[in-house]
């Protein structure tokens, strides 16, 4: 299997940090450094994403999942670490080392993101169609008719009715907003899709529908997906492989089935047992 993305020893510290917490062998109080009180939200995380797979990231609230995703989408500048994308310069260049302008280009062309909070990902007062079109515009599209067609098609795919394309997301339910975000995220057929708690806060029936749509899109487009959730049930439904995060670190990783059947780390065991 081909590697699509590789992340090496990525850390994000909120606060200055000190020599003590920079050494990832030193224990913290949860994710907080007892010496300098900095929050080590993501601590030396390494992971690989393979061709056409869905990788699950599961962990309790505050374990650093959103911080990890935002760092990968260049919303947060990591404190240290590197990442490589097969689609960017043959995976030879650390994407955190390039200019912010290059990072914008990577973000616009090679990545799709669905934020936990739709306000982060959508312009709530612009039309839903326009929100999706913005991603196309950012990738250099300049034909309105073609963009309108593509936009309507993407939203239709996500079961947003055609007669609502001109409405702003602010009029929509949470589930619909997430589906607009997904349409936007996949508009340019990016090789990598990042999904942060796409179904959190949605009704169970709506959740099931959104998860179905994600699976369908992943198969059709053959893209690689990182799906983040605090809910192991979501991870179980979607992901082939899973990493388990606790206090900013990965405590366990493996095939999702294996992790569910035979969890090794005490925290994973608690998660799995609470699932039943």
């Amino acid at each position: 299997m081909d590697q699509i993305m590789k992340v090496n020893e990525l850390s994000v510290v909120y606060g200055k940090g000190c020599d003590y917490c920079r050494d990832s062998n030193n224990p913290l109080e949860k994710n907080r450094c007892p010496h300098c009180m900095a929050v080590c939200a993501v601590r030396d995380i390494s992971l690989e994403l393979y061709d056409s797979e869905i990788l699950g990231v599961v962990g309790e609230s505050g374990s650093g999942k959103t911080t990890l995703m935002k760092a990968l989408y260049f919303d947060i500048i990591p404190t240290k670490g590197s990442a490589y994308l097969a689609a960017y310069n043959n995976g030879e260049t650390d994407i955190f080392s390039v200019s912010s302008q290059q990072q914008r280009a990577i973000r616009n062309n090679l990545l799709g993101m669905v934020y936990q909070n739709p306000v982060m990902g959508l312009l709530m007062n612009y039309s839903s169609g326009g929100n999706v079109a913005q991603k196309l515009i950012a990738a250099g599209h300049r034909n309105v008719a073609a963009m309108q067609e593509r936009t309507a098609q993407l939203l239709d795919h996500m079961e947003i009715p055609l007669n609502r394309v001109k409405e702003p997301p602010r009029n929509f339910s949470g589930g619909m907003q997430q589906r607009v975000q997904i349409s936007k995220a996949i508009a340019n057929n990016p090789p990598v899709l990042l999904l942060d708690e796409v179904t959190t806060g949605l009704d169970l029936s709506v959740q099931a529908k959104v998860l179905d749509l994600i699976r369908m899109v992943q198969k059709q487009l053959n893209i690689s997906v990182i799906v983040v959730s605090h809910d192991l049930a979501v991870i179980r439904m979607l992901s082939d492989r899973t990493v388990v995060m606790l206090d900013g670190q990965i405590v366990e990783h493996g095939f999702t089935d294996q992790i569910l059947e035979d969890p090794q780390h005490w925290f994973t065991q608690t998660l799995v047992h609470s699932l039943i």
Partner: protein
Amino acid sequence: MNENDYNFAFLDEGSKREIRRAIIKAITIPGCQIPFGSRELPIGRGWGTGGLQITLSIIGPDDILKVIDQGNDDSVNAISIKKFVSRCTGVEQTTDTQKATIIQSRHRIPEEKLGENHVLVLQVPNPEPLRSVERSVLKARQMHGDTEYSAAWLLLYEQIVRYGKITMGAGYPVLVDGRYVMAPSPIPRYDTLGLDDADCLYLFGAGREKMIYAVPPHTSVVPLDFDDFPFELENVEERVCRICGAENVYFDEIFDSETGERHYQCSDSGFCAKNAAAKQI
């Protein structure tokens, strides 16, 4: 020293130097907004103080000044700015575009072609073309830095989707020198093309927002548009100035509520007077 005991051109030399430095920086990075320390003037902010500070910083005793407000040399605002500059510099005033060396303007570029000897100073109320999409000044600057202009195009896209055409009237966003998206102050669309590859220097000053930017001579200035919705001018066809008979210029529309008739007259009053006088001879 002039009659009022003010420094020449009102501002102290230090302030003028600082503003000139911002102007030079603006000229070297066409279309990029350069912050400057906006000074207090005996004219309220929002009345062209950004433009005025530029004018005061670049004007010399041999300059000839023209000031227009929406094309009009005789508006109260234009006259009070002219008076103020004359009083603190003693420079000659004119309404003749060709004679002027510095033209300070609000909302218009003169009809007569500007040459190498001209500097056009435009007063800008809102210098940030990304403002309506991004309220944070810091984030907007980052977007300029990254040439992330999808939001500027999205604004036009939304208008097309909603109204079937681009409805943006004045202040149509342009791409300057292939790099910066710029708000060309609220000049009408008709004037936008005059910015491209011009012989003169354009300077833009926003007093409230404390920004200066520039379009140097012979810089490419391209309106944002789409392949299937290209930039179009306002329709001025079949309109004739009722005073001087000019066609294909930018008009003010005058509605006569008694007869219900619509009349047109040149928005550029200096041009109109010159044109009318030439026809009399």
